[in-house]
């Protein structure tokens, strides 16, 4: 008898079930646990305080990213909180046998950038981290999701999690992307189309020809914003692109083990005829460069469209949210976004802080100058991204245009290290959240791709990158 066709998600989930608990809850084995500076040290301390040991320190990796300074001359104690957080995390990691990627080392960077880059994140793995953008690692075909602080403790103590199985959703994106349209535009347009809550309760698989043609960096960007679709899990089936990406990475398997792993990875993609609880199809060829206008990633339009009018919205809750968003952003319905003056431009984060993102921004910036009204930063997602970009001379392009070229970390994405957009100022940012106060109190954030952010820096206002390349 033919076995039931299964989805990528089904295969990875079922192979990690240690036990079925009552009420539809599974005890799930965890392959990689990533710690960051906000909770890492404290969680290790609390585990020790309960007299417990880290169950599998060899599967646990930590890196400081949220609270660290990003100034070129930064040190562990450059921000008021980083000194305490980093020293505790470093000490506790050492004590419990957890690998710690310190500032200034090749492995340092934003946790969701270094996981793939070091080859720590691999297809078919369960990967968790106390951070909602853990879904990023799904770009390699991993089942990766963010967890809360109590769950972090649970994983440290048991290397498992109690989870209710989500339902499945497939978003099929077919068609060839138009020039100057990036992975970021694809996922923002998807969220704009199906909504910031559409993925809730689902594990989402992104599929279709547009996804298959993407590089791993681009797939990571798409999966990074799964949580902005409401889904804590986003995945893309591993293929030749995935395998050649992983080959030779420091923590990827080597030699005969690599071949065995590849064989396993090739068995993971969803079978023909596999059933998803929900299906969406989107024409990727029709997507134009996107910019958000509001305070939810679903408040997004193509750069040449006009801001929608809440008066035309029939759902009263949604209408109120739109009105509040426009008031916060200082924008008027019907207005064109293109041409709106900006104060800040930020290129970086676990969404768009990888080498290919920096290259895309550099392509727009090359030979041009940042507009006098704009402060513009590039914060590479990791130390090794930074070094690779410098080997290509990209830092020079940005510096001579008037950008700041900084050190790896989360920086202005959430402003936890003090890198914030001042109140009332407008930024175009390659990050993933335009929430109220996300980049600083009363900061006004427009999410966009690296090319679009670079275009805004040069033009001094929201601009269409297609006109600049």
């Amino acid at each position, binding site marked *: 008898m033919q076995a039931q066709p299964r989805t990528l998600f089904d295969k990875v989930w079922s192979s990690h079930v240690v*036990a079925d608990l*009552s*009420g*539809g809850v599974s*005890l799930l*084995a965890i*392959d990689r646990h990533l710690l960051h500076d*906000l909770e890492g040290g404290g969680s290790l301390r609390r585990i020790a305080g*309960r007299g*417990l040991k880290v*169950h599998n320190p060899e*599967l646990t990796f930590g890196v400081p990213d*949220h*609270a660290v300074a990003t100034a070129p001359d930064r040190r562990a104690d450059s921000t008021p*909180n980083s000194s305490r*957080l980093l020293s505790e995390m470093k000490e506790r990691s050492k004590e419990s046998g957890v*690998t710690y990627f310190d500032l200034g080392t*090749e492995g340092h960077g934003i946790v969701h950038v270094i996981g793939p880059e*070091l080859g720590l994140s*691999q297809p078919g793995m369960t990967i968790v981290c*106390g951070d*909602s953008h*853990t879904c990023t690692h799904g770009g390699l075909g991993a089942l990766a999701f963010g*967890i*809360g*602080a*109590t769950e972090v403790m*649970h994983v440290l*103590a*048991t*290397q*498992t999690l*109690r989870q209710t199985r989500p339902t499945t959703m497939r978003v099929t994106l077919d068609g060839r992307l138009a020039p100057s349209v990036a992975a970021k535009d694809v996922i923002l347009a998807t969220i704009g189309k199906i909504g*910031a*809550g559409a993925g*809730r309760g689902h594990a989402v698989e992104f599929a279709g020809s547009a996804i298959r043609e993407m590089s791993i960096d681009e797939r990571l960007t798409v999966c990074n914003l799964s*949580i902005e679709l*409401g889904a*804590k899990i986003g995945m893309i089936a591993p293929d030749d692109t995935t395998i050649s990406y992983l080959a*030779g*990475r420091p923590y*990827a*398997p*080597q030699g005969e*083990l690599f071949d*065995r792993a590849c064989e*396993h990875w090739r068995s993971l993609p969803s079978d023909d005829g596999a059933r998803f609880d929900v299906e969406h199809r989107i024409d990727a060829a029709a997507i134009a460069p996107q910019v958000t206008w509001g305070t*939810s990633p679903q408040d997004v339009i193509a750069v040449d469209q006009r801001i929608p009018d809440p008066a035309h919205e029939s759902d009263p*809750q*949604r209408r*109120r949210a739109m009105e509040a968003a426009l008031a916060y952003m200082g924008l008027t319905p019907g207005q064109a976004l293109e041409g709106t003056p900006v104060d800040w431009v930020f290129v970086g984060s676990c969404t768009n802080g990888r080498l290919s993102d920096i290259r895309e921004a550099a392509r727009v910036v090359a030979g041009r100058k940042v507009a006098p009204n704009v402060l513009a930063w590039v914060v590479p997602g990791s130390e*090794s991204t930074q070094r690779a970009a410098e080997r290509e001379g990209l830092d020079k392009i940005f510096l001579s245009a008037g950008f700041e070229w900084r050190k790896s970390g989360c920086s202005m994405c*959430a402003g*936890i290290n003090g890198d914030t957009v001042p*109140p009332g100022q407008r930024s175009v940012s390659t990050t993933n*959240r335009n929430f*109220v*106060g*996300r980049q600083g*109190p009363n900061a006004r954030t427009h999410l966009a791709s690296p090319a679009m952010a670079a275009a805004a820096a040069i033009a001094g206002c929201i601009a269409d990158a297609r006109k600049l390349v």
Partner: protein
Amino acid sequence: MEKFTRVTGVAVPLMRANIDTDVIVPAKRLVGHQRDELGGFAFEAHRYRPDRTDNPDFVLNQARYRGAKILVTGENFGCGSSRESAVWALAGFGFHCVIAPSFGDIFFNNAFQNGMLLVCMAKDEVERLAADVEGSVTPVMTVNLVSRAITAPSGAETPFEIDAERRQALLEGRDEIGMTLARDAEIRAFQACDRAVRPWIYRTAPQDTESA
């Protein structure tokens, strides 16, 4: 974790969709503050004016909703960041229960881990409850986990559904880490089998490679 059976107290309606955890507690409060200090920063961006006096327009600041224990709110509440601080801030503010049409997935798990009850109800039922609260002289509500019913300020009763496992965990005030550790033999047996099938998962020393 403390046991949860029922809560009776002031309910406050905050009827907006997509209230994210950055709004519930801003990122800058995630460092340098203890868990039990976060209540003062709940909904910080809305609650205070720039001079840090209370913003009278924000519903949580209205006199009739002082000391609220139950929050009635819009769809996708708690979306965004995984910060458990959002739950600690709500708890610190005094909330024991949140009622909404739907919740962010990670927030949902976090709340139950901290003994906070989240009740999912159809959108029109939540809106009816909110209207009942707004129209009442004293906006006091009871959410009873034992009988799985809400008594609105008007006295109207609404039953609610809740996952049996989560309900039991709250009623007993369970410690999940302890319960899972009791299954450690199973976990180790799983890992031993898995190690034979997928040995590369457990080989985590860095390999010598030319840096990419």
